[in-house]
């Protein structure tokens, strides 16, 4: 019973923290660029304001357009409940593993692209086609870096991977681990629409990818999509933090361990978010035709990770 309560609580923490993470990156980026910036908790106000507004839906839109925000938010919350955020308990029942998590997130992306096409606006179609190009190129990398992790731990279950890394800390410094982390980090940037693949803070039609797809959304729908996007970023960063550097995560349900787990995950997310903010301040957006180069770099990194874990033992 306590186990389910704790798992539900962990999911709630992830959902509640997500806007703060997005706001923190935005705030830190503004400070780094010499601007004052909105406070980190600004996204909460935005979401509340959007929920109070009326939604405008195009006449040509079908049910897909209205269902997509719920699907995007719903799948992301389900994934957040699978990922070990605060506690990683080894249990005989594996509800969802790495494959399930990554492909549930992709389901949301797929529906977002459909909704972009649905309204028939040119920007939506452009964004959807670009998003699908990027996703098709990141897919092999995601699968390969999962394989690299799973080969190390002998399982694709989150808790097994965490437990394995905790028992063999030297493996965490191995090239297989580091290369897979680098590959997954590039993929995170591409999948969550950050620089250098997509610019999250622009509304310039010629360059945007994610923003072009959601251009037609307004009101509560937009709130759900924005919240879902923030949660997706949190989920990816949590994966990167807890699968590759699991130290501090709670292995039991004791209150003290849970508290340490919560504090450590917030600290790790803060470090990764700061890394993203610094990166986004330093690099410019890549030309769309150079994005495949970046993604093939990440693919080769993942390939090397698999090779060094699979062939070198």
């Amino acid at each position, binding site marked *: 019973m306590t186990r389910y309560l704790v798992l539900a609580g962990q999911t709630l923490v992830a959902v509640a923290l997500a806007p703060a993470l997005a706001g923190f990156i935005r705030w830190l980026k503004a400070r780094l660029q010499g601007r004052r910036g909105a406070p980190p908790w600004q996204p909460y106000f935005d979401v509340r304001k959007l929920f109070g507004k009326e939604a405008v839906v195009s006449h040509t839109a079908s049910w897909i357009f209205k269902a997509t925000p719920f699907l995007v938010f719903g799948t992301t919350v389900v994934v957040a409940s699978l990922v070990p955020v605060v506690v990683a308990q080894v249990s005989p029942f594996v509800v969802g593993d790495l494959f399930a998590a990554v492909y549930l997130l992709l389901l949301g992306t797929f529906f977002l692209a459909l909704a972009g096409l649905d309204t028939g606006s040119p920007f939506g179609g452009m964004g959807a086609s670009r998003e699908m190009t990027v996703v098709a190129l990141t897919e092999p990398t995601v699968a390969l870096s999962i394989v690299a992790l799973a080969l190390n731990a002998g399982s694709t279950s989150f808790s097994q991977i965490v437990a394995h890394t905790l028992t063999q800390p*030297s493996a965490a*410094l*191995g*090239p297989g681990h*580091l*290369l897979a982390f680098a590959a997954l980090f590039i993929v995170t940037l591409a999948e969550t629409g950050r620089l250098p693949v997509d610019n999250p803070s622009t509304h310039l039609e010629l360059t945007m990818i994610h923003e072009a797809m959601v251009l037609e959304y307004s009101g509560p729908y937009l709130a759900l999509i924005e919240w879902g996007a923030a949660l997706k970023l949190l989920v990816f960063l949590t994966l990167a933090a807890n699968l590759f550097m699991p130290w501090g995560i709670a292995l039991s349900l004791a209150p003290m361990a849970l508290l340490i787990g919560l504090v450590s995950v917030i600290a790790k997310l803060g470090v990764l978010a700061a890394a993203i903010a610094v990166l986004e301040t330093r690099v410019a957006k890549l030309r769309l035709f150079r994005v*495949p*180069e970046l993604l*093939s*770099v990440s*693919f*080769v990194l993942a*390939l*090397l990770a698999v*090779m*060094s874990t699979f*062939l*070198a033992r």
Partner: protein
Amino acid sequence: MTLETLETLETMMDAMFSQLVMLGGSGMLLTGLIVLWRKHVPAYISAYRWQAWLLAAVTATVGYFGGDWRLYVVAGVLVALKGIAIPALLRAMQLRFGKQPQITPYVNTETSLLVAGLLVLFAYVLARPWVAVTDLPTREGLPLAMALLFVSLFIIVSRRKAITQVIGFLMLENAIALLAAVGTYGVPLLVEVGVFLDALMGFLVMQIFAYQIHDTFDTIDVEQLTRLRH
């Protein structure tokens, strides 16, 4: 200390040693891949500098765990020669050629990265029997050194500019040095010094060649060398 604790300590040291060598080797391989990805000569030079520093670190690590003080000397010379002197010479060379347009290789970036991935796979397969027969703690580094060897050969054949070919050659030389360090715990100091001198001489000769090419043809694009000028 009992015998068992000593033994476990030794295996732990071995594991750490192998881990560190593997990390350094992978870092060197990554700098080779950076060259395939980036498009400007300064990025190539800094990738080479990083690679040289990593090679020095691996050599020093092998010296520490293998208990050979001469490898420290080699690491010191490596830093001075390949980590500082040759990059400075390369930068001087690049300044003399002036601002070059970005490098267009014979093979495009995506393909060359994938080819590099396949070459690494090939190196792993090739080095497998070799890794299986040795029980050196550094054996995991052998396929990495072979892979760097192939990747730098690929850099030499797939780039157009003379200066990038020179960098490819220097990386090839680094790969051989890495192979020597992890495969045999370093060759005798005298041989090492000879190799350093050879590398430096080779580099200087190539530099003169590149200058000559530049003066005669007003470009360092080796594509132009296939046509008769005079």
